[in-house]
Protein backbone atom coordinates (compact mmCIF):
# COMPACT_ATOMS: atom_id res chain seq x y z
CA UNK A 1 0.00 0.00 0.00
CA UNK A 2 2.84 2.37 0.87
CA UNK A 3 4.43 1.84 -2.53
CA UNK A 4 1.18 2.57 -4.35
CA UNK A 5 0.56 5.77 -2.37
CA UNK A 6 4.14 6.87 -3.09
CA UNK A 7 3.64 6.09 -6.77
CA UNK A 8 0.43 8.15 -6.77
CA UNK A 9 2.08 11.19 -5.24
CA UNK A 10 5.11 11.02 -7.53
CA UNK A 11 2.93 10.41 -10.60
CA UNK A 12 0.91 13.51 -9.71
CA UNK A 13 4.12 15.55 -9.37
CA UNK A 14 5.37 14.23 -12.72
CA UNK A 15 2.10 14.95 -14.53
CA UNK A 16 1.83 18.50 -13.18
CA UNK A 17 5.48 19.40 -13.79
CA UNK A 18 5.48 17.88 -17.31
CA UNK A 19 2.52 20.06 -18.24
CA UNK A 20 4.19 23.13 -16.74
CA UNK A 21 7.45 22.51 -18.61
CA UNK A 22 5.49 22.86 -21.84
CA UNK A 23 2.94 25.49 -20.81
CA UNK A 24 4.96 28.00 -18.77
CA UNK A 25 6.33 30.92 -20.78
CA UNK A 26 9.46 31.65 -18.78
CA UNK A 27 12.25 29.17 -19.72
CA UNK A 28 13.78 29.39 -16.23
CA UNK A 29 10.52 28.15 -14.72
CA UNK A 30 10.41 25.39 -17.34
CA UNK A 31 13.89 24.30 -16.24
CA UNK A 32 12.97 24.30 -12.54
CA UNK A 33 9.82 22.28 -13.25
CA UNK A 34 11.96 19.83 -15.17
CA UNK A 35 14.28 19.48 -12.16
CA UNK A 36 11.30 18.64 -9.94
CA UNK A 37 10.14 16.18 -12.59
CA UNK A 38 13.52 14.43 -12.60
CA UNK A 39 13.58 14.14 -8.79
CA UNK A 40 10.11 12.55 -8.75
CA UNK A 41 11.24 10.24 -11.55
CA UNK A 42 14.23 9.15 -9.44
CA UNK A 43 11.80 8.08 -6.71
CA UNK A 44 9.88 6.02 -9.26
CA UNK A 45 13.16 4.40 -10.33
CA UNK A 46 13.66 3.33 -6.71
CA UNK A 47 10.21 1.75 -6.79
CA UNK A 48 11.36 -0.19 -9.88
CA UNK A 49 14.41 -1.59 -8.00
CA UNK A 50 16.81 0.61 -9.99
CA UNK A 51 18.83 2.10 -7.17
CA UNK A 52 21.96 2.93 -9.16
CA UNK A 53 19.97 4.48 -12.02
CA UNK A 54 18.05 6.60 -9.50
CA UNK A 55 21.30 7.97 -8.08
CA UNK A 56 22.65 8.64 -11.59
CA UNK A 57 19.36 10.35 -12.48
CA UNK A 58 19.75 12.82 -9.60
CA UNK A 59 23.48 13.42 -10.16
CA UNK A 60 23.62 13.56 -13.96
CA UNK A 61 20.18 14.86 -14.97
CA UNK A 62 19.05 17.03 -12.08
CA UNK A 63 22.61 18.00 -11.25
CA UNK A 64 24.68 18.35 -14.40
CA UNK A 65 22.33 18.61 -17.38
CA UNK A 66 19.83 21.00 -15.82
CA UNK A 67 22.64 23.23 -14.52
CA UNK A 68 23.91 23.36 -18.11
CA UNK A 69 20.43 24.42 -19.26
CA UNK A 70 20.15 27.14 -16.60
CA UNK A 71 23.70 28.26 -17.39
CA UNK A 72 22.82 28.70 -21.07
CA UNK A 73 19.61 30.56 -20.27
CA UNK A 74 21.47 32.95 -17.98
CA UNK A 75 24.41 33.30 -20.40
CA UNK A 76 22.16 34.29 -23.30
CA UNK A 77 20.01 36.44 -20.97
CA UNK A 78 16.83 34.71 -22.12
CA UNK A 79 14.78 35.30 -18.97
CA UNK A 80 11.64 36.34 -20.80
CA UNK A 81 12.58 37.92 -24.13
CA UNK A 82 9.85 39.76 -25.97
CA UNK A 83 10.67 38.32 -29.40
CA UNK A 84 10.03 34.80 -28.14
CA UNK A 85 6.55 35.65 -26.86
CA UNK A 86 4.20 32.98 -28.07
CA UNK A 87 1.34 34.00 -30.33
CA UNK A 88 -1.93 32.13 -30.37
CA UNK A 89 -1.92 29.66 -33.22
CA UNK A 90 -4.38 26.99 -34.20
CA UNK A 91 -1.71 24.31 -34.04
CA UNK A 92 -1.50 24.66 -30.25
CA UNK A 93 -4.96 23.40 -29.19
CA UNK A 94 -4.79 20.81 -31.97
CA UNK A 95 -1.44 19.55 -30.64
CA UNK A 96 -2.72 19.35 -27.05
CA UNK A 97 -5.73 17.39 -28.27
CA UNK A 98 -3.58 15.00 -30.28
CA UNK A 99 -1.29 14.46 -27.27
CA UNK A 100 -4.29 13.62 -25.11
CA UNK A 101 -5.55 11.20 -27.77
CA UNK A 102 -2.09 9.58 -27.92
CA UNK A 103 -2.09 9.02 -24.16
CA UNK A 104 -5.61 7.61 -24.17
CA UNK A 105 -4.87 5.18 -27.02
CA UNK A 106 -1.61 4.00 -25.45
CA UNK A 107 -3.20 3.67 -22.01
CA UNK A 108 -6.02 1.59 -23.46
CA UNK A 109 -3.57 -0.68 -25.25
CA UNK A 110 -1.34 -1.08 -22.21
CA UNK A 111 -4.14 -1.78 -19.76
CA UNK A 112 -5.67 -4.34 -22.08
CA UNK A 113 -2.50 -6.44 -22.39
CA UNK A 114 -0.27 -6.27 -19.32
CA UNK A 115 -1.07 -7.90 -16.03
CA UNK A 116 0.54 -7.93 -12.62
CA UNK A 117 4.25 -7.34 -12.11
CA UNK A 118 6.56 -10.32 -11.72
CA UNK A 119 8.39 -10.75 -8.44
CA UNK A 120 12.06 -9.85 -8.95
CA UNK A 121 15.09 -10.04 -6.66
CA UNK A 122 15.61 -6.66 -5.06
CA UNK A 123 19.31 -6.42 -5.91
CA UNK A 124 18.98 -6.14 -9.71
CA UNK A 125 19.68 -2.41 -9.66
CA UNK A 126 22.64 -2.22 -7.30
CA UNK A 127 26.00 -0.87 -8.40
CA UNK A 128 27.45 -4.37 -8.13
CA UNK A 129 24.89 -5.99 -10.43
CA UNK A 130 24.71 -3.18 -13.01
CA UNK A 131 28.49 -2.88 -13.07
CA UNK A 132 28.96 -6.62 -13.55
CA UNK A 133 26.71 -6.66 -16.61
CA UNK A 134 27.96 -3.32 -17.92
CA UNK A 135 31.54 -4.59 -18.06
CA UNK A 136 30.82 -8.10 -19.31
CA UNK A 137 27.81 -8.45 -21.59
CA UNK A 138 27.56 -4.75 -22.48
CA UNK A 139 31.21 -3.79 -22.68
CA UNK A 140 31.18 -2.88 -26.41
CA UNK A 141 28.21 -0.47 -26.13
CA UNK A 142 29.87 0.98 -23.04
CA UNK A 143 33.11 1.65 -24.90
CA UNK A 144 31.19 3.09 -27.86
CA UNK A 145 29.52 5.45 -25.38
CA UNK A 146 32.93 6.79 -24.41
CA UNK A 147 33.70 7.43 -28.10
CA UNK A 148 30.34 9.22 -28.41
CA UNK A 149 31.16 11.47 -25.46
CA UNK A 150 34.58 12.21 -26.96
CA UNK A 151 32.91 13.22 -30.25
CA UNK A 152 30.51 15.45 -28.30
CA UNK A 153 33.40 17.16 -26.49
CA UNK A 154 35.31 17.76 -29.73
CA UNK A 155 32.16 19.01 -31.47
CA UNK A 156 31.32 21.42 -28.66
CA UNK A 157 34.84 22.86 -28.74
CA UNK A 158 34.80 23.21 -32.54
CA UNK A 159 31.48 25.10 -32.39
CA UNK A 160 32.38 27.26 -29.42
CA UNK A 161 35.77 28.52 -30.60
CA UNK A 162 35.86 31.08 -33.35
CA UNK A 163 39.36 30.16 -34.56
CA UNK A 164 41.04 26.87 -33.80
Amino acid sequence: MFGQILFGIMALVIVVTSIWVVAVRNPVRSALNLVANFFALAVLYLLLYAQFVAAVQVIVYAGAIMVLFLFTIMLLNLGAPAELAERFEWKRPITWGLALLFVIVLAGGVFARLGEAQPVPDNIGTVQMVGKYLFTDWVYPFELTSVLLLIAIVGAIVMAKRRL
Partner: protein
Amino acid sequence: MEAIPISWFLVLSAFMFAMGVTGVVIRRNPIVIFMCIELMLNAANLAFLAFARQQAQLGAQVAGQVYTILVMAVAAAEVAIGLGIIVAIYRLRDTINVDEMNLLKF
Protein backbone atom coordinates in the same frame (compact mmCIF):
# COMPACT_ATOMS: atom_id res chain seq x y z
CA MET B 1 7.02 -3.98 -0.74
CA GLU B 2 4.15 -5.24 -2.87
CA ALA B 3 4.34 -4.95 -6.60
CA ILE B 4 2.96 -1.94 -8.46
CA PRO B 5 1.46 -2.93 -11.84
CA ILE B 6 3.80 -2.25 -14.75
CA SER B 7 0.99 -0.66 -16.77
CA TRP B 8 0.84 2.29 -14.36
CA PHE B 9 4.46 3.14 -15.13
CA LEU B 10 3.87 2.71 -18.85
CA VAL B 11 0.87 5.05 -18.87
CA LEU B 12 2.92 7.65 -17.00
CA SER B 13 5.73 7.16 -19.51
CA ALA B 14 3.28 7.65 -22.40
CA PHE B 15 2.03 10.85 -20.78
CA MET B 16 5.55 12.24 -20.39
CA PHE B 17 6.36 11.36 -24.00
CA ALA B 18 3.18 13.05 -25.25
CA MET B 19 4.01 16.20 -23.28
CA GLY B 20 7.49 16.18 -24.81
CA VAL B 21 6.13 15.90 -28.34
CA THR B 22 3.63 18.68 -27.62
CA GLY B 23 6.37 20.96 -26.39
CA VAL B 24 8.59 20.29 -29.41
CA VAL B 25 5.70 21.11 -31.76
CA ILE B 26 4.24 24.22 -30.12
CA ARG B 27 7.16 26.00 -28.43
CA ARG B 28 9.44 28.41 -30.29
CA ASN B 29 12.22 28.74 -27.73
CA PRO B 30 14.89 26.17 -28.70
CA ILE B 31 16.03 25.74 -25.08
CA VAL B 32 12.51 24.72 -24.06
CA ILE B 33 12.43 22.41 -27.08
CA PHE B 34 15.60 20.75 -25.77
CA MET B 35 13.99 20.37 -22.36
CA CYS B 36 11.03 18.64 -24.00
CA ILE B 37 13.45 16.27 -25.77
CA GLU B 38 14.89 15.46 -22.34
CA LEU B 39 11.34 14.77 -21.17
CA MET B 40 10.89 12.28 -24.03
CA LEU B 41 14.21 10.57 -23.27
CA ASN B 42 13.19 10.20 -19.64
CA ALA B 43 9.86 8.73 -20.69
CA ALA B 44 11.82 6.13 -22.67
CA ASN B 45 14.01 5.46 -19.63
CA LEU B 46 10.95 4.90 -17.45
CA ALA B 47 9.53 2.46 -19.99
CA PHE B 48 12.88 0.63 -20.17
CA LEU B 49 13.00 0.19 -16.41
CA ALA B 50 9.35 -0.85 -16.21
CA PHE B 51 9.81 -3.50 -18.90
CA ALA B 52 13.06 -4.65 -17.27
CA ARG B 53 11.04 -5.23 -14.11
CA GLN B 54 8.71 -7.49 -16.11
CA GLN B 55 11.43 -9.83 -17.46
CA ALA B 56 11.97 -13.34 -16.12
CA GLN B 57 15.76 -13.72 -16.44
CA LEU B 58 18.31 -11.80 -14.44
CA GLY B 59 20.32 -10.82 -17.54
CA ALA B 60 17.27 -9.24 -19.18
CA GLN B 61 16.34 -7.41 -15.98
CA VAL B 62 19.76 -5.81 -15.66
CA ALA B 63 19.90 -5.14 -19.41
CA GLY B 64 17.06 -2.62 -19.06
CA GLN B 65 19.04 -0.71 -16.46
CA VAL B 66 22.20 -0.77 -18.59
CA TYR B 67 20.18 0.60 -21.50
CA THR B 68 18.98 3.43 -19.27
CA ILE B 69 22.55 4.39 -18.45
CA LEU B 70 23.47 4.39 -22.16
CA VAL B 71 20.46 6.62 -22.90
CA MET B 72 21.65 9.03 -20.20
CA ALA B 73 25.09 9.22 -21.83
CA VAL B 74 23.47 9.96 -25.20
CA ALA B 75 21.31 12.64 -23.56
CA ALA B 76 24.34 14.30 -22.00
CA ALA B 77 26.18 14.37 -25.33
CA GLU B 78 23.07 15.70 -27.09
CA VAL B 79 22.61 18.51 -24.57
CA ALA B 80 26.26 19.57 -24.79
CA ILE B 81 26.14 19.73 -28.59
CA GLY B 82 22.67 21.27 -28.76
CA LEU B 83 23.34 24.06 -26.32
CA GLY B 84 26.63 24.72 -28.11
CA ILE B 85 24.70 25.10 -31.37
CA ILE B 86 22.23 27.48 -29.68
CA VAL B 87 25.04 29.66 -28.31
CA ALA B 88 26.75 29.71 -31.74
CA ILE B 89 23.49 30.70 -33.48
CA TYR B 90 22.83 33.40 -30.90
CA ARG B 91 26.29 34.85 -31.48
CA LEU B 92 25.77 34.79 -35.23
CA ARG B 93 22.21 36.16 -35.49
CA ASP B 94 21.36 37.72 -32.09
CA THR B 95 18.15 35.72 -31.88
CA ILE B 96 17.26 32.11 -31.21
CA ASN B 97 13.68 32.12 -32.39
CA VAL B 98 13.25 28.84 -34.24
CA ASP B 99 10.74 30.38 -36.65
CA GLU B 100 13.55 32.51 -38.07
CA MET B 101 15.96 29.60 -38.42
CA ASN B 102 14.65 28.54 -41.82
CA LEU B 103 17.74 28.60 -44.06
CA LEU B 104 17.57 24.85 -44.63
CA LYS B 105 13.95 25.02 -45.76
CA PHE B 106 14.66 26.48 -49.18
